[in-house]
């Protein structure tokens, strides 16, 4: 079975950003927030949150530099 065929994943791929990184961030976002809520503030959760923001910013800059999504 393809991951894309899972209900929520399928919905995001169909209605989402049509961009693998943004689609991925949309899918991972709730999991990151739940992880923070459950695990609390620690070096690991801070690292995960920072990585999420970093991935977003770097991808936008990459799109800008390459001139395409």
């Amino acid at each position, binding site marked *: 079975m393809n991951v894309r065929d899972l209900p929520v994943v399928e919905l995001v791929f169909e*209605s989402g950003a049509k961009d693998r990184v943004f689609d991925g961030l949309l899918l991972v976002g709730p999991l990151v927030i739940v992880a923070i809520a459950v695990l609390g503030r620690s070096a690991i959760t801070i690292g995960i949150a920072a990585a999420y923001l970093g991935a977003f910013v770097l991808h936008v800059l990459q799109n800008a530099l390459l001139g395409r999504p």
Partner: protein
Amino acid sequence: MNAATETIGRDLGRILQALAGLMFVSVLVPVVWGEYYAIPPLLVSGAIPFVLGYGMTSVFREAEYPGKLHGMIIAALGWLCVGVFGSTPFLLIAWTVELAPAVLNTPAQTSTLAAFTSPLNALFESMSGFTGTGLTMTDNEEVLPRTLQWWRTFSEWIGGVGVIVLTTAILARPGSGSLTLYESEARSEKIHPSIVSTVRSIWWIFILFTFISILILWLAGMPIWGAINHGMTGLSTGGFSITDNSIATYDSVAIDFALIPVMILGSIAFPVHYLMLRGELRNLYADLQTRWIFGFFSAGSILLTAMVYFNGTYDSAFTAFRYGLFQYVSAMSCTGFQTAVDSTNVALGRWPAEAQLTVTFGMVVGAAAGSTVGGIKLIRLATLLKGIRHRISDVFYPESAVRRLKIDGRRLTQEEASREFEEAAIIAFLWFVFLGLGMFVFLTILPAGEYTLENIVFEVASAQGNVGLSAGITGPSMPTLGKVMFLFNMWIGRLEIIPVLVLLRTLFSRGGLYQ
């Protein structure tokens, strides 16, 4: 029953069903937080609009697509209905705790929650939430059940993008009817040729930015529940808080500055966000509204900082900058988060008059059309200013000269320029008419000498601009007429007045009151 009523009834039914869905989804919050007593009232609150909406949609299934008139009536009535039915969680949860049935194991009643046993207070809170205003009937948000804290936040988050945008995205219906409704909800620019694709793009951008906002606030030091709520209400430029003194409760420079980019994200139009996410960052300066956002935010903040610093309101230049920047961005982005409150610093209502009026200017203008903000919007201000300059300079040219008005890269013909200038002038005029009406009502009903004129101008502009900053007038003890006036101000402010006037004209015309 005529065709118009059927069309309006069918689309109102859809909106009510979407609202019911939001309430059913929210049941997760009392389950997670163990507030089991809130589950029955929340389910009942969802069941009412669901049954009504399902009935209306079924009965009027075959109705025709809405035209422009229908679209405006649906938008005006839809937002009113969402405000009314969205108030039931406040009302029913407050009464559940008040009546304290033994089987539900309810907590002790608080004066804050007890305020919502009044239907008018519940309606005010709901309307303030869905219109993204943020003025509140609560004394202390911290003691509210988490379920209601969430419902306030959720209503603002949904309202920021738009109830009709939500309905169109969920109950996708391609065709001209959706476009008419979309435009009636104070939106005009499309991202894609298809309206369904447009609203879906708006939603993924909004959801992605919500995660970003939550994580920025959490990294700045806000607890996760606060980050979730403030991230959502900050991005939707709503401004409801879960703390007693809004953002001042945290008294954190890092959090204050972390909220600035969140509010700016909410101030930029979705089509521009879309282009920037696809890599076209030049829109930061190429798009007129986005360029003006940064210009106005910078100039207003510097001016406000200077006013509160040189008037001696704050001791240090940095403190003046911290509060001046935050309050101005919060006002002009129509968010309404407040850091200048009594317990930690100087309250906004006691700022110098010129500073309050500068903030008021920001609230009246607002930021970009096509974003989540209220106010007249920057594109209208640009149209008015450029239109006035164009008209004045007409005198210096011969009658035979062919001149084009250039706005945001578009070269408008004489006819197009006249139409856009007229529309901007009408909305701005009506804006000030209702601002004046609100001021008149508050000058009449408030005890003499308790509030200054600038306090009243500030508060009415805040309600009508869907901002939520308060000089201290709004609260559960406000006179009933004041609450009703603000309900009207918030409603017309969210829909940019015209749809509400169209609805009222239709009602009066049907009732024989308007000829």
